[in-house]
């Protein structure tokens, strides 16, 4: 689905990582761990073409991301649901409108009504649907971000610290939703520095754990 092949990226003169490779195979479930500042968010942004690799190749659904024009990038993003750490909502819209936004921008707003009710119920936000994002708690916002990420039924779900701003109970609830999506056949990549959260899921899902540190991406299964 998404492949990073010998990719390098850095900010200014500082290389964040170089010659890094990663493959998100269809139906896989992967965690990306590593200390803060290791480049987890940058790696995720490369995966959904929000950044262009400075060296190496990023392939989105078989296409070289470097050769994609902005419209093609937009079309690719419709196949990737992204859950951001800071949620990234439009604060002037209701939470229901925010969740339906991917359908709205794809000129498929008419499909929103049927999916939206179900989704709001799935993430437990039916009562809050008319509220604006600033009126919601951190956990509610994260669940809304997850609902927005899946409303287009994307092939890939990428979540950046989805449990970063919520308590343990809420984080378990969010992860359960992600596991449910994986069971529905979605490819999932979650960036987190919360190893306890990963351990709690080991019995529920066959996940691969990757560790990004000092510019190197290694399999971290053994250290968990």
């Amino acid at each position, binding site marked *: 689905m998404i492949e990073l092949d010998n990719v390098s990226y850095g900010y200014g003169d500082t290389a964040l990582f170089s010659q890094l490779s990663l493959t998100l195979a269809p139906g896989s479930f992967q965690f990306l761990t590593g200390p803060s500042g290791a480049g987890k968010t940058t790696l995720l942004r490369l995966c*959904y073409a*929000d950044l262009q690799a400075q060296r190496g190749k990023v392939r989105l659904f078989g296409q070289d991301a470097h050769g994609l024009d*902005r*419209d093609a990038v*937009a*079309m690719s*993003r*419709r196949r990737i649901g*992204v859950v*951001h750490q800071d949620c*990234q*909502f*439009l604060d*002037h*819209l209701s939470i229901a*409108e925010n969740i*339906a*936004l*991917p359908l*709205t*921008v*794809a*000129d498929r*707003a008419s499909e929103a009504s049927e999916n939206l009710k179900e989704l709001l119920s799935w993430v437990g936000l039916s009562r809050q649907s008319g509220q604006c994002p600033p009126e919601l708690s951190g956990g509610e916002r994260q669940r809304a971000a997850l609902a*927005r990420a899946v409303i*287009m039924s994307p092939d890939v779900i990428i979540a950046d610290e989805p449990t970063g701003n919520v308590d343990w109970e809420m984080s378990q609830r969010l992860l359960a939703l992600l596991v449910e999506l994986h069971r529905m056949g979605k490819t999932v990549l979650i960036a987190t520095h919360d190893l306890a959260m990963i351990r709690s899921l080991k019995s529920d899902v066959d996940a691969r754990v990757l560790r990004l540190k000092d510019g190197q991406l290694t399999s971290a299964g053994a250290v968990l």
Partner: protein
Amino acid sequence: MKLLLDLIIGDPQADRVVPPTGLTARLTIFVAAVMAFLAVIALALSMSAGRVADRWADELAQAATLRLPADTDLLQKALQILETTPGVASAHALTADEQEALLTPWFGTEIPLDSLPIPQLIEVIADDPPYDLAGLQARFDAEIPGAVFDDHGDWRDPLLAAAARVRLIGWLVILLIGACIAAMITLAAQASLAANVQVIRVLRLVGARDVYIARAFVRRFTLRAGAGAIAGVVMGVIVVQILPDGGGFFAEIGFKGAGWIWPVVIPLLAAGVAFFATRAAAMTRLKEQT
């Protein structure tokens, strides 16, 4: 047609993705209204100048004056020449009273004009096709020495040139007003785009194409410019219609006949200018903001 319909009806949900900006909206409407108002006034003046010039030119193009020396007894001969010249519709020798009426504004009524050596004037009206001016003058030179045939070209030509310039200036003003609207809308659109960087970022992250994002801004500015221009045109037309009728040129100011199409066209032009200006600004900005 579909594009126009989409623009007017729009998608209420899609419109809401960009937050409302009160000040920018009001300023855009205000600028469009002022510019449309000025355009109406400029057009009314320009078209009126054109009409007056055309009418004067038409009248003067038909008429000419033959001036015979004061002491001549060749009036009948001059009339005979004129009557036998092809292209002359009529020739009328001004009576003493008519000549006196012409001179009264300059000399008053106290001076005994009949004792002054006043040249005899003959008003000549051209036919269609008109007479050969050079040939006619040559004939008078040969047969009635001192006779001067004046087709009013000496002062009609500068008048026509001036009227043409007034018309040209009018259109230039319209062009400048259009450029001003484009510049102001571009600035307002750029300000709006800059203020909504985060909105654009979120829209892109959820898969919005550039054309979708641009459309949300374009529709908003196009409708604002159109609405402002309608208000400005209405104000302009009212002002033109209630101008005091001072006679002469002032009596001509306003729209007549097919000229009434312009108050309808101005809001469409303003909306069109806003459409293209906003679209260009949005697409440029979105290209930069990758």
